[in-house]
């Protein structure tokens, strides 16, 4: 195995690891940047996405939890993975919209701490509800049949097919959201609203609806992340909270509200983490990403691509 192959493997693994961070961070970042709303329930949306994905994909046997106590042996409608990939973002989009309308909206004008408390509370409720109903045990999330097994790549050799799929799906979605924000009228209104809300309202444009949609899109991205990230490992009630911290870190490193920033930061974190594991410093992989975050924030408090105005 050559050094080149080693480096390419690290980059590809890093891209895959980073992809999930990116998907979560982009949603989080546009909500934070546009609506100035700190959403600690973003991990819960990922969690909902993963469980919904399981539910739509197949039949999951229940061995503990309240539903099992009631005699329900399995849950799921068995429509397959592709159906989950299509349906989950739609459902989580609707959940996001409901969350904006009934939870977030009344907290826009309140301090960050209030927003953190209410969304974190919401996240805990979702997590514990799932635990109570479905049990705390981890469920394997089967990979889609069309993407299981290895694929042979030049130089690198075998690589899991699904992990390439994760990178591709992430790329498509992120480019889509970027185009929506940068090149459409909708995006223009959202960007203008971010810069000067009062002026936009004076021009006779209602901002509540675009904000609703932004929140929905951010939520849907987290939902997709749950579906594509589920088969990489397992699904259990803790995965949402576990993903929340790296996702926030990605947002902060990349610069709040910057989609490009989230992409760059996510890939940096993923690659660093993978590089540390593959070079024999696995124990340092978690420390590494926080150390990187600390260094970047010391040098550029506004994040890599953030502008100083945005931070204020």
């Amino acid at each position, binding site marked *: 195995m050559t050094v080149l192959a080693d480096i390419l493997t690290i980059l590809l693994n890093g891209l895959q*690891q980073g992809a999930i961070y990116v998907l979560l961070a982009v949603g989080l970042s546009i909500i934070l940047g546009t609506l100035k709303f700190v959403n600690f329930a973003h991990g819960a949306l990922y969690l909902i996405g993963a469980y919904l994905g399981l539910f739509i994909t197949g039949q999951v046997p229940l061995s*503990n939890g309240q539903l099992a106590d009631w005699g329900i042996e399995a849950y799921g409608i068995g429509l397959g993975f592709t159906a989950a990939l299509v349906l989950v973002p739609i459902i989580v989009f609707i959940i996001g919209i409901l969350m904006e309308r009934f939870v977030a909206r009344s907290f826009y004008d309140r301090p960050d701490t209030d927003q953190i408390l209410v969304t974190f509370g919401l996240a805990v409720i979702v997590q514990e509800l799932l635990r109570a109903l479905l*049990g705390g045990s981890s469920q*394997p999330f089967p990979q889609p049949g069309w993407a299981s097994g*290895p694929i042979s790549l030049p130089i690198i050799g*075998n*690589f899991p097919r*699904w992990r390439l799929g994760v990178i591709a799906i992430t790329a498509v979605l992120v480019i889509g959201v970027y185009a929506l924000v940068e090149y459409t009228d909708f995006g223009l209104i959202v960007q203008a609203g971010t810069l000067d809300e009062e002026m936009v309202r004076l021009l006779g444009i209602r901002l509540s609806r675009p904000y609703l949609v932004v929140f929905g899109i951010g939520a849907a991205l987290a939902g997709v992340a749950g579906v594509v990230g589920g088969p990489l490992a397992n699904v259990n009630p803790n995965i949402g909270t576990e993903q929340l911290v790296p996702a926030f870190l990605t947002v902060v490193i990349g610069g709040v509200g910057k989609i490009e920033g989230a992409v760059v930061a996510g890939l940096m974190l993923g690659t660093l983490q993978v590089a540390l*594991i593959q070079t024999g410093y696995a*124990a340092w992989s978690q420390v590494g990403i926080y150390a990187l975050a600390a260094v970047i924030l010391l040098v550029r408090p506004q994040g890599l691509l953030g502008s100083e105005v945005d931070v204020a």
Partner: protein
Amino acid sequence: MPTNGSSVSRRQLLQTTGAAGTVGIAGLAGCSGDGGDGGGGGGDGGDGGDSDSYPALGNFPVEGDTVTFGFNVPQSGPYSSEGQDELRAYQLAKKHLNNGGGWIEDFEDLSGDGVLGYTVDSVNGDTATDADTARQSAQRMINRDDAVMVSGGSSSAVAIAVQGLCQQENVMFMACLTHSNDTTGKDCVRYGFREMFNAYMTGQALAPVLEEEYGSDNTFYQLYADYSWGQTVQESMNQFLSDVGWEELNSVPTPLGTSDFSSYLSEAANSGADVLLLDHYGLDGANSVSQAVNAGLDEDMEIVVPLYNRPMAQAAGGSIEGVFGTIAWDSQIDNDASNSFTTAFEDEYDRVPSGPAQLAYAQTLQYAAAAERAGTFYPPEVIRELEDYEYDNVGLGQETMRACDHQAQRSIPVARGLPESEQSDGNFIDLVQVTSRDDVGYACDSGPAAECELGEYGDE
């Protein structure tokens, strides 16, 4: 073993008449037993938690007419499927102890009418596959619920933490699934007994099979769970594979509860080793082996999972095909005890029991039988009944619960995963051989036992 003298206390009399009242003379005859070859005769009618003959110690004497066992298993975390199956087996053991069935007829010391005239009750705990949580849960069982015996495991870190606590509290610990050398090695305790074999014995049983299958002069690479269990598996596999001429290229620790092994596996693939050992258990093991196969590692190297079980093979699905490993027990082991446990478990739960379930069931009955032989729940007497006890009634042939380290000397089943097309109805593995206990093990002054200091009985 000497039991307490001949004086009959008020409680003994009440228990004897109570037992006679509920099950009649035939039941009483079964309860008093006709000795049994395991040691010592059951006494006449059971002396219960006789507080007159022995001083109070731990949760002895037992108050009231029920005796409480604590079942401390992982109901969440990476070993939760194992834990759930253990819990099913514990509940079955409790049911059989109180009402008969299963192995009760074959355990001469047991009556199927409670233990020593007491009805068996239980409390369950969730260890979350975490040593601290497990310790707290066991502490609660001991302090609040007055458990006289705690059983559990699945995670050696858990078993070691809990048996340490049990030693301190003078409460019996019957280890369920724990495979680290340390459990009956450097961390052994007087109050803990292990039916399960350990990593050292796995190395002894597996190395010859691997050599025969894959030849000598192989290089191997290990990924191991980074705690007591994984560390001793890594050590022992290295030791015994080196003995057959294999060479370890590298071994890399992975944190317990890692769900994504892709980066570790890439590095393993790049090592160019002939064989990859995945020293992971439970869901971690199922994940690492399926991710290895998904990444195509099985095309260039042979994969070995030194310790696995039925739920793991099930979760890994087709990825377990051709993978060698040792297992605690399997329903395919064909003898009376094995078959009767499988039947009883299937009748109750409509599913095939796993190896950890057999351990849970066996350890609960083993404790109850020892208490019956001792004629008391007084822990030092129960311990003496278990030490050097010879038995052949748990489905793995003749065994000895060795006194010097409380490690069962037993045979080791070696298994190989079946291809997905042949997997069905709880059958995921092919039993390659059951390695005789004569071919594995070590003397009391060597191997892990050399480091074992059991500690005090509590009545010195």
